[in-house]
């Protein structure tokens, strides 16, 4: 795109009230659990208390004998013969021969009230034969570990590995040994991160109805209604188009609501009750036990550095378990590991490993935070030992547009250098530090994603515009899409209404994931608006009796393009729209594509901490997020993404973890024990929005949602070392763990 296309904008970059704000501050907005239907039943799920067990027998007769209990479903009610991902989803929705983790669903009940359904679920008798289990990634791939599923490995896994290794990958470049030989200092360490949950405050909820005829409806909180449709159709053997899925408002997702967990169960139960609607709302403990957290990771990293800070070689070997199914994001983690650095010699090796834990789901920049924890921690250790400034070292090795990325192809337009420059210039770096206080920095990366996108737009008779998008609004995307549409049409922001619509209303859309909503739906909305503008120019041209090419669109009105086109006063959008019925019919635009031109986003974080040497508690004193947004359409919501990502990363770094006992049972499936940051744990989170416009988007947008969760993990570990001189290479750095490390140091 030519530079001058980034002219002054009227609306892009402003901070108007979000269109759904009023509904959300008055309690009117309807989330997953907020809808009921006539004749509705409630569902409850029976879950395995064992980490790994053969299901010998399920006896539901006592439950079914209760007055008001209408149906019980087990795996026997599902179609057979599925393969690949569809089989994995079905097996996770409802256990077949074996329960594969603590919390795995084995049966579901529908009854006339919620309490009755829960009572009935307790009366379903399941006989188990307990099997050996494994929950730790390194143990799961060691010789003699219990086999979760024979034959689950794909073609990438070399012979001789444990059957729990289901995917293997390696890639690299240069000569790794020569690279290490060139270095003045080579360091190698093992790093571990525990699984963390997305922790959205809204538990999964779904109201489903399915008739004998195979036609069904769903009301569900999801990041992607078409994904839900396809997955439920696959799992239940339905035709996709017969299932109509309406997304509710969504109370957070962060990747965890891009897939299904219990969502097919209301449909299966409904079908067994003659098509009565069934609602299931998960409890928090069900969310933590049985919906996807992220993977846990065990990572060996080796880096060589010269005295001047040049990184000569890097090696990363990552092992990740993502539960009892393939899909740990080890590939993404490896791609991100050295993405910020120009390193000539690299080697990456990765293992995706099965274990007796819930099926992992995407979590904000999946894989990247773990990779950053390992690599950015080790880079910091090297800087410390060589007496180098960590930001200067990152600048010295920083990748620039056109450089060959660590994962292979060359980068498009990226803004890491600009991000680092803005970081160095920030006043937080000048703040004085006291005793037991320290400062840490780290860099993070995410690719961002495009995906199938379908948007339609229609002009109303009064010249206002409605936009239908398929990407649920999780963090203000209605506002950003309305801003871009209004900017393009040249009308006020308030004249645009953006609706998130059901699957019957548009072509297929991928979910709101991969930081794509503002990029992809936004780009498609701009295209749709341009189409409508073309039509309105044609109508004005007809009215004036001139060629359509002689008409241009300026500030929400058609006008003759230059003096040769003729002398006509501008015809406003309201005038054109008012006559649409007699000038050719409705005026609309639509756009379907997989938009090209995704822009990747780098971020740098700086954190100041204070460690209490008596308790091992870490307090965040100051926090700075600097990240490239391409262009911030609604800066307040860009800042919100930066702050929210940082807070989640802080939680992962300091407190959040999945704790299993020796029976493989999750020990902390409540918020009291799975401790996410609260307001008193955090300071204000300072943000700097760097804008290196993405040439692939009409307004320069890069995705901004994900990168921000990545740097906090290492930045905090680095700050803790700066404060008290101990290096913790395992997350979370909870008070007991840090206290133990301090004691060991003496």
């Amino acid at each position, binding site marked *: 795109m030519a530079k001058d296309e980034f002219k002054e904008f009227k609306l892009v970059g402003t901070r108007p009230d979000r269109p759904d704000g009023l509904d959300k501050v008055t309690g009117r907005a309807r989330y997953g659990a907020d809808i009921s239907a006539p004749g509705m039943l409630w569902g409850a799920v029976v879950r395995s208390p064992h980490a790994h067990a053969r299901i010998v027998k399920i006896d539901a007769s006592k439950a079914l004998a209760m007055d008001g209990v209408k149906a019980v479903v087990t795996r026997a009610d599902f179609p057979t013969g599925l393969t690949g991902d569809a089989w994995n989803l079905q097996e996770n929705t409802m256990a077949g021969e074996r329960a594969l983790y603590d919390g795995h669903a084995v049966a579901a009940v529908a009854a006339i009230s919620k309490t009755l359904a829960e009572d009935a679920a307790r009366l379903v008798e399941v006989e188990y034969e307990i099997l050996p289990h494994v929950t730790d990634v390194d143990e799961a791939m060691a010789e003699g570990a219990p086999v979760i599923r024979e034959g689950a490995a794909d073609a*990438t896994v070399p012979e001789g590995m444990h059957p729990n290794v289901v995917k293997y990958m390696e*890639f690299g470049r240069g000569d790794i040994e020569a690279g290490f030989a060139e270095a003045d200092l080579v360091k190698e360490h093992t790093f571990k991160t525990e699984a963390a949950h997305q922790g959205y405050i809204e538990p999964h909820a779904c109201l489903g109805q399915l008739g004998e005829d195979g036609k069904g409806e769903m009301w569900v909180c999801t990041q992607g209604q078409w994904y839900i449709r396809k997955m439920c159709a696959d799992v239940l053997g339905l035709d996709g188009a017969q299932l109509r899925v309406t997304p509710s408002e969504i109370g957070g*997702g962060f990747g965890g609501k891009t897939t299904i967990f219990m969502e097919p169960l209301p449909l299966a139960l409904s079908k067994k009750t003659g098509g009565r609607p069934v609602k299931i709302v998960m409890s928090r403990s069900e969310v933590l036990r049985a919906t996807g957290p992220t993977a846990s990771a065990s990572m060996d990293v080796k880096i060589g550095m010269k005295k001047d800070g040049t990184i000569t070689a890097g090696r990363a070997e990552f092992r990740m378990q993502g539960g009892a199914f393939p899909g740990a994001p080890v590939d993404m983690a490896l791609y991100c590991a050295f993405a910020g650095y120009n390193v000539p010699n690299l080697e990456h090796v990765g293992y995706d490993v099965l274990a007796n834990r819930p099926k992992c789901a995407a979590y904000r920049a*999946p894989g990247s935070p773990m990779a950053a924890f390992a690599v950015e921690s080790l880079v910091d250790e090297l800087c410390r030992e060589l007496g180098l400034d960590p930001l200067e070292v990152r600048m010295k090795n920083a990748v620039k547009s056109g450089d060959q990325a660590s994962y292979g192809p060359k980068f498009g337009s990226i803004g890491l250098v600009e991000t680092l420059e803005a970081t160095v210039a920030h006043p937080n770096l000048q703040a004085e530090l006291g005793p037991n206080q320290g400062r840490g920095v780290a860099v993070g990366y995410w690719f961002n*994603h495009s995906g199938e996108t379908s948007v339609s737009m229609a002009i109303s008779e009064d010249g206002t515009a409605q936009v239908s998008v398929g990407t649920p609004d999780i963090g203000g995307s209605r506002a950003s899409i309305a801003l871009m549409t209004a900017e393009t049409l040249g009308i006020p922001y308030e004249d645009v209404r953006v609706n998130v619509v059901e699957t019957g209303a548009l072509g297929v859309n991928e979910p709101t994931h991969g930081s794509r909503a503002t990029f992809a739906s936004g780009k498609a909305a701009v295209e749709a608006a341009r189409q409508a503008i073309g039509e309105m120019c044609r109508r004005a041209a007809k009215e004036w009796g001139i060629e359509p090419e002689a008409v241009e669109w300026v500030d929400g009105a058609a006008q003759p393009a230059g003096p040769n086109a003729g002398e006509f006063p501008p015809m406003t959008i309201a005038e054109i729209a008012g006559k649409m019925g007699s000038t050719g019919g409705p005026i609309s635009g639509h756009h379907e594509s997989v938009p090209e031109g995704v822009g990747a986003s780098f971020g740098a974080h700086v954190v100041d901490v204070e460690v209490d040497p008596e308790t091992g508690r870490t307090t965040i004193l100051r926090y700075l997020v600097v990240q490239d947004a391409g262009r911030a359409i609604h800066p307040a919501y860009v800042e919100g993404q930066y702050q929210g990502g940082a807070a989640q990363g802080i939680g992962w770094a300091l407190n959040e973890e999945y704790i299993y006992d020796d029976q493989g049972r999750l020990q902390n499936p409540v918020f009291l024990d799975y401790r996410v940051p609260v307001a008193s744990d955090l300071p204000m989170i300072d943000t700097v929005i760097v804008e290196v416009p993405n040439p692939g988007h009409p307004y320069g947008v890069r995705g901004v949602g994900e990168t921000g969760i990545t740097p906090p993990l290492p930045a905090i570990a680095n700050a803790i070392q700066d404060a008290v001189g101990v290096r913790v290479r395992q997350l979370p750095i909870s008070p007991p763990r840090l206290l133990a490390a301090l004691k060991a140091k003496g």
Partner: protein
Amino acid sequence: MARVQVHLWSGLRRLTDGAEAVEVEATTVGEALDGLIAAHPGLEPLIEAGVSVVVDGEMTTSRHQKIGPENEVYLMQRLKGG
């Protein structure tokens, strides 16, 4: 048709007789993928399961995208996000 070099990740070497980059006859991304499968049938399940193709640093979104010998073409694991 022109010969296009497709860079693979090296873990696939076992399936490509040791090659980390494979030359195929292709004018589009789709032809390149088909060409890879024809040359190394072991790649089929992986390609069918979903891969990303990056041309000159841009994630491609269409099998019909034109490519030629002058383009840098990388095969990557499918990318998405949270």
